[in-house]
């Protein structure tokens, strides 16, 4: 009977989905409204946006940077995928960081925090596919570190949310597997022999360096998005889970049978304590806590079924969870959770983890609408929840729990983002709807449709849709920070370049041979490379240390090498290492790929690869005529 009801509900939801996405609704808009919205989002030539928007690029492996309110895409930060545009993944340093992977699934960018507020130092982001976490430095908007694949974590989706002082970046398994990795267990042993893991990746507070922190062995649920407690709930971390049925097969059906799934509530300070007390086993190099050995570290809180995330209110008093398949958002009271734990008000357990009494912890159930997913907060006590099925953003009030307003979006919203919307001090000016479908809202681009993002004004009583923008696959979550909070550098100061192979004068350029290794110290400056050519023997291992000796903003140079599949970009003051084996004989041009100056086209040189058999010593064979390179000649000949 219950099964039939659920089927009916599913069909109903499907119909709603089809209806909401199928018909392009064009609400009647007043001319005055259009003008107001246009003025609110227009950034005049030469003017600057008010906020940075960092949004995930999903399976592209990138993070995209846009300005708000214009929603103009400004830059791409490659993280988990090679990106020839910036030469990322072609030089030795970034290649090593990528570790051979050519893609990643970027999901949830998270800004580093101090006292629960964005501090603008780093941006962390997770790779759902290859179980990694990366750190982007917001001083230069560059990926600085990639940790992973993280041991024991499989499907790192519930990541990379940070604790209020960036002690940890959260990480969790979406796809439970037998542990450690490389273990085989038949799929029919899923319920008992497979495991989920929730984890904290430790962040060095000075350098941002990422390392394995604690891991907790969990039942084979699918762990989903998380959120860190703050203020009163500081020291706790929450994740939702689905498939608490421990089912296999078509999860669409098998994992949606129970009315409730769980929030995993982790006392990470207690986890820290358990590690210090030695209550862990080392599993594949990670410190794994078994909850049976360390009571008090983790609890399960029932929530409405198939949730996709949990969000903590700015005051830290409540944690909010929406079950996709029920039209309600549930608000839980952190104090009540503590009381229930004290009173051992439990209704069961899962693999030794107590299940807390739902009724004892629940504060309110808010009837938000169909397919609620994620919630963000503003500074006036309102919450904004995305409704995937209904394709809308709903506004409701904390405390009274009443639903106040709803605005349709186009279409099928996933995440949403308010500036500082996950911190202790949100700025309730905009909410950005990150939608999955966009058809009919833009001139058609064929079957591969982009996603859409929509900016909504939330300063008034009623939310107001301001503008549409279209985004590359695929924005999951985003972080918005006031522009004046970031102070990026635009030039790498010469004094900071500690690369021992950097050279700063064209006179210091040189080509040296040691056996089969040819080492080139090369400069790039408007509008020439030095040396302008060099000889090697086929089969030589070539290393080029390339320094852009410019100290002027925007004077980037590229280094493309024909038919050797190499494309490097060096920013002003930067040194990169290019390594390759010269296995193709012949003459190959290298040239500046990043337009730099009036004589950019002339910025070129030749790699001469002498076929095997001929004896050739490495050296410069061609001397150019400008004063600059004459100086180089003096130093080199």
């Amino acid at each position, binding site marked *: 009977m219950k099964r039939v009801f659920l089927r009916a509900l599913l069909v109903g939801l499907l119909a709603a989905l089809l209806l909401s996405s199928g018909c392009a609704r064009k609400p009647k808009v007043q001319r005055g409204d259009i003008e107001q919205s246009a003025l609110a989002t227009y950034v005049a030539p030469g003017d600057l946006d008010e906020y940075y928007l960092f949004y995930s690029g999903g399976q592209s492996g990138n993070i995209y940077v846009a300005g708000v309110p214009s929603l103009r895409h400004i830059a791409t930060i490659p993280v988990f995928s090679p990106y020839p545009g910036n030469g990322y993944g072609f030089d030795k340093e970034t290649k090593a960081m990528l570790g051979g992977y050519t893609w990643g699934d970027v999901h949830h960018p998270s800004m580093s925090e101090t006292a629960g507020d964005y501090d603008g130092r780093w941006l962390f982001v997770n790779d759902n596919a290859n179980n990694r976490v990366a750190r982007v430095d917001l001083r230069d908007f560059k990926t600085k570190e990639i940790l992973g694949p993280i041991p024991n974590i499989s499907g790192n989706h519930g990541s990379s949310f940070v604790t209020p002082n960036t002690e940890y970046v959260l990480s969790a398994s979406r796809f439970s597997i037998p542990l450690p990795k490389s273990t085989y267990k038949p799929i029919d042993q899923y319920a008992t022999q497979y495991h989920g893991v929730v984890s904290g990746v430790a962040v060095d507070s000075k350098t941002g360096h990422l390392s394995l922190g604690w891991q907790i062995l969990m039942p084979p649920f699918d762990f989903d998005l998380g959120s860190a407690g703050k203020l009163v709930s500081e020291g706790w971390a929450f994740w939702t889970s689905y498939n608490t049925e421990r089912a296999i097969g078509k999860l669409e059906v098998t994992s949606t049978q129970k009315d409730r799934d769980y929030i995993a509530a982790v006392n990470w300070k207690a986890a820290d304590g358990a590690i210090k007390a030695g209550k862990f086993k080392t599993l594949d190099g990670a410190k794994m806590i078994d909850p049976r050995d360390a009571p008090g570290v983790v609890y399960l809180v029932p929530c409405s079924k198939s949730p996709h995330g949990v969000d903590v209110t700015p005051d830290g008093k409540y944690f909010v969870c929406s079950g996709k398949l029920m039209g309600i958002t549930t608000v839980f009271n952190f104090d009540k959770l503590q009381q229930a734990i004290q009173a051992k008000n439990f209704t069961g357990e899962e693999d030794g983890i107590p299940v807390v009494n739902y009724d004892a912890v629940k504060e309110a159930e808010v009837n938000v609408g169909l397919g609620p997913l994620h919630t963000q907060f503003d500074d006036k006590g309102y919450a904004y929840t995305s409704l995937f099925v209904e394709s809308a953003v709903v506004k409701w009030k904390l405390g009274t729990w009443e639903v106040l307003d709803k605005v349709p979006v186009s279409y099928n919203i996933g995440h949403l983002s308010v500036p500082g919307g996950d911190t202790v001090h949100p700025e309730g000016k905009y909410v950005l709807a990150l939608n999955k479908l966009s058809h009919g809202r833009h001139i058609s681009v064929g079957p591969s449709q982009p996603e859409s993002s929509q900016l909504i004004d939330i300063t008034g009583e009623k939310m107001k849709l301001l503008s549409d923008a279209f985004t590359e696959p695929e924005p999951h979550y985003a972080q918005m920070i006031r522009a004046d909070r970031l102070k990026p*550098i*635009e*030039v790498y*100061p010469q004094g900071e370049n500690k690369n021992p192979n950097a050279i700063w004068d064209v006179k210091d350029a040189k080509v040296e041979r040691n056996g089969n290794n040819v080492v080139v110290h090369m400069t790039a*400056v*408007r*509008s020439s490379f030095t040396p302008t050519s060099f000889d090697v023997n086929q089969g030589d291992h070539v290393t080029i240390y390339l320094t852009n000796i*410019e*100290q*002027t*903003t925007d004077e980037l140079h590229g280094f493309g090498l024909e038919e050797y599949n190499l494309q490097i970009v060096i920013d002003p003051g930067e040194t990169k290492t290019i390594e390759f084996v010269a296995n193709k004989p012949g003459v190959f041009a290298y040239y500046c790929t990043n337009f730099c100056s*009036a*004589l950019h086209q*002339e910025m070129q040189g030749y790699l001469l690869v002498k076929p095997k058999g001929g004896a050739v010593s490495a050296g410069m064979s061609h001397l150019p*005529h*400008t*004063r*600059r390179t004459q100086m180089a000649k003096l130093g080199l000949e």
Partner: protein
Amino acid sequence: MSGQTAVLTAVGPAVESFLVKEARFFDRPLGLGSRISILAATVLLLPAFFFPLYTMTLYSNQFPDGLNLYIHAGTLKGGQSAARDDLREINSLNHYIGMHPLQEADFTEFQWIPLMLGFFVILNLRSVVVGKMSALVDTLVLFGWFGLFALWHFYDRLYTYGHNLDPTAAVKVKPFTPPMFGSQQMANFTVFNYPGIGTYAMVGFAILLALAILLSARQKRAFGPS
């Protein structure tokens, strides 16, 4: 003959009287006002050690805030910001027209200008102590010579940099001399060249010395016997 003698006898006493008057003038002691004025001039010279003597600013569409070059008594400085090193940038751009890079080591001025300024500080202190008009006049005359020489030298520098262009340069421009005072259009740049605080301080120095002379020229023997 007699005419000549007549002229001599007529002019002779006048010349003699003039020379005697001038000798008295140069012997004249300096009054308190003059000495204060000399001290003030000395203090006014100090900024010339620290502030630019000349400021050159190059504006273009790409550099709306202008590339700045500051010529100090003892050094050459470019505008510095986190995103730009103006001296390096100016040299980068100048290499396209084959201009010799501006580098401090090429300028002997940076040794002798501060030395001369120090010299004038000492001469001034000497005037105050010696307290004689002649010392003061010597200083002003020497300073005038120094000032004119420095200006001529600066002009020569501008001329040389603008005319000694590398014939192999990528962009051929007509030899030019940047203005000493004012602006000039060079390709996509508008170049403004104006004296800086240091130069104005030196002008002030000369004016205060002149004032010191005037003050004691009018003075009726306040010090010493007639």
